[in-house]
């Protein structure tokens, strides 16, 4: 492919390499370092004049540092006369402080979905998937869960927090029947994992045979890993929008779905001016 360059920030070099491999390209040369006064320094190592540039940086780890690195890289490419600069941000930072809504941006935004990859994983890895039940750990995720349940042609359930009296702690109430079924909890992100661990307990005590958790972004900060180790999950599955190697060493229940092909295909289609909407319901090979 002519006129395309892919650069990686320092947040997730592994994913960037996978994306580049799928596209049959080499990653662009860039040096990212910090001066002794902790200021970020970025130097692009090759010409980007007239090129379609893609910068892959995930909002994980030291978020503010990675964000600044991304901004400086975008700025550097623009000043070096790149024809177009696109940021590929698998996990968008500060997404919970305001909605990651298209209307907040002045530029085109493609919000891709992990759903096709999740469906594929379920069909390939859970034997009794035809008889499973998809569960949302909170009322907000109902739409996401029903979408998956419909495509698999299975039932769904949800857990909602009920406050009986003013000073009483929220009770978790299961809406739906999970007896003798394999329950699959689905959510968009797992941060401290308090909610999904409670949800798992609830499901087991309500009669579920096994509990899986499938989450798009595995942030896993604070007590998350120890909570998962002590909880009754069969497996906790996340995508590789955030690097998981370190955490997998401390927790054998974590499995990773590779979504590099979705991002690579989105980059290829954007570069060639093709439609990206195919990716909203299909996983590229």
């Amino acid at each position, binding site marked *: 492919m002519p006129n395309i360059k892919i650069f990686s920030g320092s947040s997730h070099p592994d994913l960037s390499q996978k994306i580049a491999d799928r596209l049959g390209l080499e990653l662009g040369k860039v040096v990212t370092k910090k001066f*002794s006064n*902790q200021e970020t320094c970025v130097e*692009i190592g090759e010409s980007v004049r007239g090129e379609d540039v893609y910068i892959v940086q995930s909002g994980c780890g030291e*978020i*503010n*540092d990675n964000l600044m690195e991304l901004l400086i890289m975008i*700025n550097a490419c623009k*000043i070096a006369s790149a024809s177009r600069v696109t940021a590929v941000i698998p996990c968008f930072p500060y997404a919970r402080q305001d909605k990651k809504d298209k209307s907040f941006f002045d530029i085109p935004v493609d919000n891709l979905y992990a759903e096709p990859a999740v469906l594929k994983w379920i069909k390939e890895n859970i034997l009794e998937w035809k008889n499973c039940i998809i569960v949302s750990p909170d009322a907000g995720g109902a739409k996401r869960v029903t979408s998956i349940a419909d495509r698999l042609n299975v039932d769904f359930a949800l857990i909602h927090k009920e406050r009986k009296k003013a000073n009483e702690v929220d009770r978790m109430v299961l809406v739906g029947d999970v007896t003798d079924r394999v329950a699959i909890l689905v959510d968009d992100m797992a*941060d401290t994992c308090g909610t999904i661990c409670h949800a798992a307990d609830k499901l087991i005590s309500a009669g579920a045979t096994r509990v899986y958790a499938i989450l798009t972004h595995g942030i896993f900060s604070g007590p998350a890993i120890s909570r998962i180790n002590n909880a009754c999950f069969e497996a906790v599955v996340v995508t590789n929008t955030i690097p998981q190697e370190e955490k997998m060493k401390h927790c054998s229940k974590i499995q990773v779905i590779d979504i590099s092909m979705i991002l690579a295909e989105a980059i290829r289609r954007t570069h060639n001016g093709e439609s990206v909407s195919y990716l909203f319901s299909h996983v590229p090979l």
Partner: protein
Amino acid sequence: MNHTKGGLVIFTANSHPSSREMGKRIAERLGVELGQLQVYQEANRETRVQIQESVRGKDVFVIQTMSKDVNTSIMEMLIMVYACRTSCARSITGVLPYFPYSKQCKMRKRGSIVTKLIASMMCKAGLTHLITMDLHQKEIQGFFNIPVDNLRASPFLLQYIQEEIPDYRNAVIVAKSPASAKRAQSFAERLRLGIAVIHGEAQDAESDQVDGRHSPPTVKTTGAIHPSMEIPLLIPKEKPPITVVGDVGGRIAIIVDDIIDDVDSFVAAAETLKERGAYKIFVMATHGLLSSEAPRFIEESAIDEVVVTNTIPHELQKLQCPKIKTVDISMILSEAIRRIYNGESMSYLFRNIGVDD
């Protein structure tokens, strides 16, 4: 304080406790309480800012010192400024004693002019005015489309020299490289002393030397292009051996600069001055970044004292190296805030400042 306007609120948006010192001092001098604010980092390292009082219709001053985590300090400030803007503050003035990334204000190879990026981000977030001190390059004021007040620390440093160095009249103001000669000159003029300039020492890789590269980049290997299209190459600068222009024999040497960060060049300059006969060596700088091993290098060097202002917190470095002394400049920042809030003239703060300072 003028109470007919909406009112004055001062916040310090730093999460790091040592960075909140400056804010506290300024609030004390102005006789106001710091605004109620919660700034912290969540478990996933995202910064969260929660303003706990109303800023509607008020003149907000956000005091932000740069801590060890520069990027986090910048993010805290941006979130704070944006929060105030969306809460209908009447005006938002940023008080940044040290402006971050000011050493990355020129194009280096295929880099980015980060200072311009940060200036754009701050203006976009809603900043209406900026107060800072001793900008590394005065031209940085041009990166902003809002008023910028570039205050000077030199009167404080001059006062320190006159009060704390007993035989300062036998001193020479030294520029450790030709780049800081203008600053040395402006100090020397006000103290009626002579100057000396050191030339020829190795420039460190992090200096903001423009490498003369503009677009298109100059080609290194002449074999690759057609001989008839040869573009004349830029001749690399020759580095002459270290020379001291000016006489420091039997005198106190006072090296002045705006930033002291990596101290290699200062230590080398001190060695040279000692060899040429200086009997005491001081280093005066506005911003004491003093990163990584700096305190240890200073302790082991020929430098007698390093004097910096409190624009950047450096308590840890002072513990490691007793040669480091601090000059408090919160007075001029609080005076600037007072004058801006009351709509008074700022020219009094700039009297006795030469063109080259």
